């Protein structure tokens, strides 16, 4: 299954903030966690995560620091701020509303038969 670009983009911010709410992390680890949580179905272009992280930092949802893990290379770690937590709570409310609405739609339409191909396209 392929998840469309718009959905990926819309869910990126709450996902990143949610993961950072559990503890500080760095780009690659965040990406791996997203991959695991979605069972490999949410595919992000690796490079595009970083502009997103920078944006969250600029608006003050996260803060960053370069750290050197023992025996390793310099790495940039991100950590959520209080403002970021507030934003996460707000996003959760919005997503809950969307999910509820969708669930309502699914239960009414699931009883309907799957959409059949209209006759006039049969010859194509």
């Amino acid at each position, binding site marked *: 299954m392929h998840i469309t670009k718009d959905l990926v983009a819309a869910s990126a911010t709450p996902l990143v903030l949610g993961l950072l709410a559990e503890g500080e992390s*760095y*780009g*690659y680890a965040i*990406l*791996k966690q997203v991959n695991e949580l979605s069972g490999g179905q949410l595919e992000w*272009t*690796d*490079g*595009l995560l*970083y*502009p*997103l992280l*920078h*944006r969250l930092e*600029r608006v003050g949802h996260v803060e960053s620091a*370069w750290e050197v893990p023992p025996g*390793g*290379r*310099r*790495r*940039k770690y991100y950590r959520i701020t209080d403002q970021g937590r507030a934003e996460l709570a707000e996003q959760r409310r919005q997503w809950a509303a969307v999910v509820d609405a969708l669930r309502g739609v699914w239960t009414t339409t699931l009883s309907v038969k799957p959409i059949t191909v209209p006759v006039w396209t049969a010859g194509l």
Partner: protein
Amino acid sequence: VSVGGGDEVEGQILEWRAYVHRREELHTADAEELEDHLRNRITELTQAGLRPDEAFLIAVKRMGSLDDVSREFAREHSERLWKQLVLPAEPDSAAALRSRREFWVMVLCAVVAALAIKVPGWFGRDIVGDDAAFYARNLSLFVLPALAAYFAWQRRIGVRVIGVLALLFVLGAVAANAYPMRDDSQTLVLTAIHLPLALWLVVGAAYVGGEWRSERRRMDFIRFTGEWLIYFVLLGLGGGVLMAITVGTFNAIGVHAEDVVASWVLPCGAMGGVIVAAWLVEAKQSVIENMAPVLTRIFTPLFATALVAFLVAIVWTSNGIDVERDALILFDLLLVIVLGLLLYAISARDPATPPGLFDRTQLALVVTALIIDLLVLVAIAGRIAEFGFTANKSAALGENVILLVNLAGSAWFLLGFLRGRLPFARLERWQTRYLLVYAVWAWSVVLAFPLVFDFA
């Protein structure tokens, strides 16, 4: 963290890093962050059993196209100024298609203008010979119609407006060529100077897309004029270097390229350059916007100082202004430059910012220019009283009166703005409305002066 794959992959990562470095959107820290990511990905893939070089390929692929990544970085870090220079266009978007088409229409217009100046040559009008007067009075007619056509196409101007513009160009062509002016007459020189001005304002009507009543659009045109001038001078400097080197190197091998350069490269290049400069202003708008205000900020205080020094020298030596004709032209030029600086500063200014030191400097510049203009007017009036009206003196008188009124108005509105009584927009409106005065004056010099002064 060891990549676990030997020197080959290290080398590839270094190469990748160098490639990323060429992207100005990505600062060193960003590149480092991305590299860390790349190494993590490679480590993971090699641990899963891939060979290091395979892992490298996949890791790079998953990073995404560098175009996309750097575009996102540029979007996020919009304060990095060069953004406008390097932001690649969205692939296959309608905007990219349109800008490509704009480019080719511009090239077409530039070629038409460049060839137009060669057409009279095919009918025996020699550009380097006796027909210099013919070229002098018609120069603007070769290139400005093509420029107006470019804007007419780009702004999708209606047929009626195009008709009016075409009519004005025909009117200018008739006035410059049908009047029986002798080659050495004053009215011919005046036409050669004023027709380009008159037609430039016609181009302005095309530039604003026919909305010549709109003051905001008029201000855009004033800004465009200043930026166009900067680009044209830059192109001219580059072209001059190119021609000098070409002639020099051909001379070194015993071939004389002067004639080709003088009869083809120079005229065609100058005509095409007018169009290319206009296109550059439009296409690279944000680049010059950063440069032109800087130039006005540097030169406004410098010119103000020079003018004050000049006034002090007049008072000190109690010498009046020499009324030689060349000197008067020099003063006119000086006043036009002052006006240009003022106009450009106004057009580049954010009307919302409060008055500051720069506005005071500007007021000083305008007031000193005003005084000098008065002195020049006195000198001209003296000459007219002594020798009577001629075409040249009448034109000089008219121009100085026009400049005097403009500078007086500007000084008044600037003063009001500095004292917090008038909004800055009043000064803007004064200048945009004044465009009409220039148009009326330039056209009357072209159309009426030869008749009034009997083609002398």
